[in-house]
């Protein structure tokens, strides 16, 4: 077995109940430790669906998806939460909670129903806070945080799970330049130093091209291209996928796209 292989999705097909077309029509994706893979594609191209199938929330119609060599659907949720941390797209906590308390929730997969937090749990929480630069916010209420701070806290919670795989579903949506850059740099740093792999779903093509090791470009439920950024973000492919005329330039040897004006 490939020792570094964390996520292995092979030719999965998936269709939502009652739908007439496949949400995923034969998608394959591999992710290894130390790798940051960005999942790109237009709205409705199947990015979130692929994440859900890959993590065993939905059963694929065909194909297989495994995590650390075990079929995704066979993982008990608690065991899976010890190896995969997810920052989901949406979450709204209606009850007041402090930052440290929400990060402590990341330790739950490691604790039985009656178990008391151990020293290692407290240490993991403090370490996760520190790794995500939110130690200074630890005693703040969640609802006093800015959007960028809140996302870093949620990443800290996922990190407290001590996962091998970190999955982030559009973590930078509606963040300004500074917070977006901070988040991308944080994710890159975690992948480089924490012995984990990360799957990042994002709409920011240019930052993905600069920070990711590989890009998987989804379009209409199938992969339009996958591989290192320069191989994926070619003009013909990108224009077809995003349905818009683009110019491709290069910055620090990474492709960058600029959407062009289109005459009506």
């Amino acid at each position: 077995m490939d020792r570094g292989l964390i996520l292995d999705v092979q030719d999965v097909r998936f269709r939502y109940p009652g739908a007439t077309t496949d949400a995923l029509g034969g998608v394959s994706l591999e992710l290894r430790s130390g790798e940051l893979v960005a999942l790109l594609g237009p709205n409705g191209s199947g990015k979130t669906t692929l994440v859900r199938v890959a993590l065993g929330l939905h059963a694929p119609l065909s194909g297989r998806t495994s995590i650390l060599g075990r079929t995704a659907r066979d993982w008990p949720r608690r065991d899976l939460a010890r190896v995969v941390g997810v920052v989901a797209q949406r979450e709204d906590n209606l009850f007041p909670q402090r930052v440290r308390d929400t990060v402590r929730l990341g330790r739950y997969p490691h604790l039985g129903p009656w178990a008391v937090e151990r020293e290692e749990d407290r240490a993991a929480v403090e370490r996760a806070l520190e790794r995500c630069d939110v130690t200074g916010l630890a005693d703040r209420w969640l609802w006093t945080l800015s959007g960028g701070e809140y996302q870093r806290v949620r990443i800290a919670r996922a990190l407290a799970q001590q996962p091998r795989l970190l999955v982030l579903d559009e973590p930078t949506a509606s963040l300004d330049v500074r917070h977006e850059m901070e988040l991308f740099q944080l994710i890159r740093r975690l992948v480089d130093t924490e012995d984990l792999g990360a799957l990042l779903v994002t709409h920011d093509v240019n930052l993905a091209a600069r920070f990711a090791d590989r890009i998987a470009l989804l379009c209409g439920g199938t992969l339009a291209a996958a591989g290192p950024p320069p191989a994926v973000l070619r003009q013909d492919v990108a224009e077809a996928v995003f349905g818009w005329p683009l110019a491709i330039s290069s910055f620090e040897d990474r492709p960058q796209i600029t959407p062009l004006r289109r005459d009506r």
Partner: protein
Amino acid sequence: MKWLAMGAVLVAALAAAIVFGPAHVPFTDLARSPIVWELRLPRALLAVLVGGSLGVAGASLQSLVRNPLADPFLLGLSGGAGLGAVLAIALHLGGPWALPLAAFAGALLALGLVFRLGLVGGAELDPRILLLGGVAVGAFTGAVTTAIVSLAEATELRNAYLWLWGGLSSASWATVRLIGLYIPVPIFVLLAAARPLDLLVLGDESARYLGTEVASTKRRVYLAASLLTAAAVAVAGVIGFVGLIVPHVGRGLVGGRHRALLPASFVIGATLLVLADTLARLAVAPRELPVGIVTALLGVPLFVLLLKRWTAA
């Protein structure tokens, strides 16, 4: 410290419930008085068990439906129990257990209906569907209850009406024993779900990614909290506001983690109901008010205060 203080307040409330009452019992006779042993003590203990149950059920259900305004009766249980009780009164069912059993059966029926609605179309107890189902079942049973009450005779009507506002006057050592044996089971189930409940507050998806088997946890919590409420309503009628207010006070005192919040909600709910019942017995002595009126009169201002604090924040 907080726990000691909460315990001390509960003990003080219990002492007040035993010392004060419409009949004057001299202080020196308290330990031997049959009024204390046969009336006040079992009644105070029943208030502890019922108030505690409503507090725990309220805290669990608020987190389950992710709504700080949820209350154990919001999910249609009070309507079902009311219908059962009014039927028992209208049909002149005899015996000391007829009314509580009928109310319990009615609550179970409503519980089953709402639970079934909550699973329609694979909804897995979606909070919105649960709340809508609870409102629908409540409206339906309310209509039938009113129909029966409108056809009943005057004394029956009064009895039924009073029952619907809750009261602990039927307390006896037998009811205390029964409820004391019954409620530890659902409370244990809820305490065992304390950690998953912390996660459910974040929403189904995040809870799942943090290791919760969401569907089975929700079912367990819903059934345990509802069975707890059903028992409370069967012996004490519909006592509102305890299940709504108590969890908020609890969160303010011990925080949102259910391992602390659930026990705190039991103690606070118990204290609140013991105090409310003592007031209900004393306010218009020798007659007494339905305790649900007192909890509403105390609860509404407290609730307004909480709302003000939220909107200020």
